[in-house]
């Protein structure tokens, strides 16, 4: 999985001594360290001299020392801080703020150079996001934009980014049509690329037939249900008995459940929106859907299960982020979030934290706030694999890819199965 070039990003942690000891270039991770040392366009963020192999990195980094003019580099972020997507938007910006705090405290960008984010709230409105994006893209003082998290907004803003030639990095925005050219980047792997990681569980449980229930007005879920699930079915040889798309305004699921019960599949894959997931699962359970019948979910569904707790026990899916992930860079990040916000880190935190570091490192690598130079540096950096809060992330045409891991709801929280 690892590419030859490996960039070490997102490990600046000056001022967070607890985090420092977990820094990814600790001696235990020899493979990583070796790969790092070989990299030519190394971007080293580490400021700690506490460990012996950092000196080598610092030496290499020094060769490429860039001096940016002192001052504040302001990038624009368009995010949903209010409205239905605010639960994701607020956590996303917390991730960005944490990264910014570290970047500025560590002096990553050089003496007297800081980075800040001008945050625009789109109110979970695609139109609003597009208008804000258009304005920012036309402002030559904006070097790079952190894009809206709404897919519906991103498919509109990406063509604007390409036309105005401003680099944009997205998190979330998981639908097709978002990463479309040289200027568009995405740090959240789209769900269809890793949903199939649940395949090992499907094989283990001997699942031969499956019915699918998905929100037919959510691009990410449509793409997963209509592409990733059939692809996995072809791959593993299970049969899809039905695939039912329902609007995300559906509140009662007794009818589709009745239909599915008649089909009697081994597993039901549920990909609905928000409270719908809790309703479907509890109504499935009330209808007698119990082990050995299986329920499969999708990344993010854990946010909707609090009110049904025990009923969702056994729900299984592939995730890209978990606080118990064995990745050291993830553990360091989880500790930092805990220290800063007192909560368990969420995927939204992680994605934007990494994306913010990518922006800072691209500016540093470009040694410029010129849009074109930043884009080229970002393209270069994402040409390899990046290790950060999300663990090891590779990119395919500037779009993030990870191998997911299987998680399961234990009645109270999600736990890593493998």
């Amino acid at each position: 999985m690892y590419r030859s070039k490996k960039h070490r990003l997102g490990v600046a942690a000056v001022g967070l001594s607890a985090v420092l000891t977990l820094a990814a270039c600790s001696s235990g991770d020899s493979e990583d360290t070796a790969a790092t040392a070989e990299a030519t366009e190394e971007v080293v963020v580490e400021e700690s001299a506490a460990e012996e192999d950092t000196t080598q990195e610092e030496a290499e980094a020094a060769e490429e020392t860039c001096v940016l003019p002192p001052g504040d580099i302001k990038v624009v972020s368009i995010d949903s801080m209010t409205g239905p997507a605010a639960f994701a938007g607020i956590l996303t910006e917390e991730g960005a703020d944490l990264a910014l705090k570290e970047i500025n405290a560590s002096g990553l960008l050089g003496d007297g150079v800081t980075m800040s984010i001008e945050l625009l709230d789109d109110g979970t409105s695609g139109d609003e996001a597009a208008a804000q994006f258009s304005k920012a893209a036309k402002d030559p003082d904006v070097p790079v934009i952190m894009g809206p998290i709404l897919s519906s907004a991103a498919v509109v803003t990406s063509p604007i980014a390409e036309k105005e030639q401003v680099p944009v990095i997205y998190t979330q925005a998981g639908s097709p049509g978002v990463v479309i050219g040289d200027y568009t980047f995405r740090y959240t792997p789209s769900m269809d690329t890793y949903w199939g990681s649940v395949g090992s569980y499907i094989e283990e449980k001997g699942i031969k037939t499956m019915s699918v229930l998905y929100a037919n007005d959510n691009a990410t879920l449509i793409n997963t249900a209509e592409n990733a699930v059939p692809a996995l079915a072809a791959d593993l040889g299970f049969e899809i008995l039905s695939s039912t798309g329902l609007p995300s305004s559906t509140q009662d699921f007794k009818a589709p459940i009745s239909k599915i019960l008649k089909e009697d599949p081994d597993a039901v894959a549920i990909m609905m929106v928000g409270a719908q997931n809790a309703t479907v699962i509890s109504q499935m359970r009330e209808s007698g859907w119990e082990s050995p019948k299986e329920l499969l979910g999708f990344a993010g569904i854990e946010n909707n299960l609090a009110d049904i707790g025990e009923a969702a026990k056994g729900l299984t899916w592939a995730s890209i982020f978990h606080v118990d992930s064995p990745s050291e860079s993830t553990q360091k990040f989880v500790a930092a979030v805990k220290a800063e916000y007192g909560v368990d880190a969420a995927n939204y935190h992680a994605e934007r934290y990494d994306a913010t570091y990518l922006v800072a490192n691209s500016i540093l690598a470009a040694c410029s706030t010129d849009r074109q130079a930043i884009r080229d540096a970002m393209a270069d950096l994402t040409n390899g694999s990046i290790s950060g809060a999300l663990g090891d992330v590779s990119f395919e045409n500037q779009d993030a890819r990870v191998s997911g891991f299987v998680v399961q709801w234990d009645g109270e929280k999600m736990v890593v199965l493998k």
Partner: protein
Amino acid sequence: MVQDLLNATTLASIYILFALGMSLVWGTIGILNFAHGSIFMFSAFVAYLVVQQIPLGMPAVVAIAMVSGALIAVAMQYLVFQPIMKKAKNPHAGELQLVIGGIGLSAIPISFAQRSTLSNPFGFSGGSFETQVYTIGGVIITNVMIIILIAGLGLGVGTALWIRNSKKGLALRALGVDPEVSAMMGIDRPKLALATMLYSGALAGLAGALLTYYFNSITSESGDTLLLKAFAVIILGGVGSIFGVILGSFILAFAEFGVLLYTDGSWVTAVSFGLLFLILIIRPQGILGKKEVRRT
């Protein structure tokens, strides 16, 4: 089949519970209250906040939601709708202003709940109520379903009979048909309006609590979804007719249920709103509605 009929009837009862208060307010005091959905949501939200602190059972949760709904509705009537009606130059201008006022009002509780929950779903899992599942002759029914069926059908039929047979019901009907004549008959509109809003708000609160139990969790936007359905229900049955609400609820619930049962689901919205358009074209006053009374 029996199971499907039972489930569809439960869905119809949910629509009745939600649409009843909205229809009553619209058909009598002439307020098409677009904030009804947010009263529904916010009543459940208040109960949720309490249940987070104190593990209450269903009767207490329902009572909290009903009182909250009634208070919110009365406050809206007193602070917004009544002043609008008073200032309106003529009834038609007033109607439009009421709709706009309702839309504006509905945003306040929704934003508040969105901020407070970060738009995550919420439910009564902090309370002591447990859903019980019973299987009777192969048909599955839960205690929540039984309560919803009794409340929905009971209150629907009860309210319809009350409007039909009581003096207050007669006065409300008169207000709905012709406010000018009602005034000449000495009917105290502001007082009746306040009482109607109170009842409607309590019903919204009841619906909010019971639906949250039934669906296990709802979101800040759940009321808006139901508002559209209630709109369809009321138009189908006929504005001003409480039996029309019952009929409309059954038609919409069974249509939706049937579509979901026999198709892949993408048609459900099209069919329910297709029904609505069909009624608007062939019988604009609704199935049980009366032709618009000519006013001069």
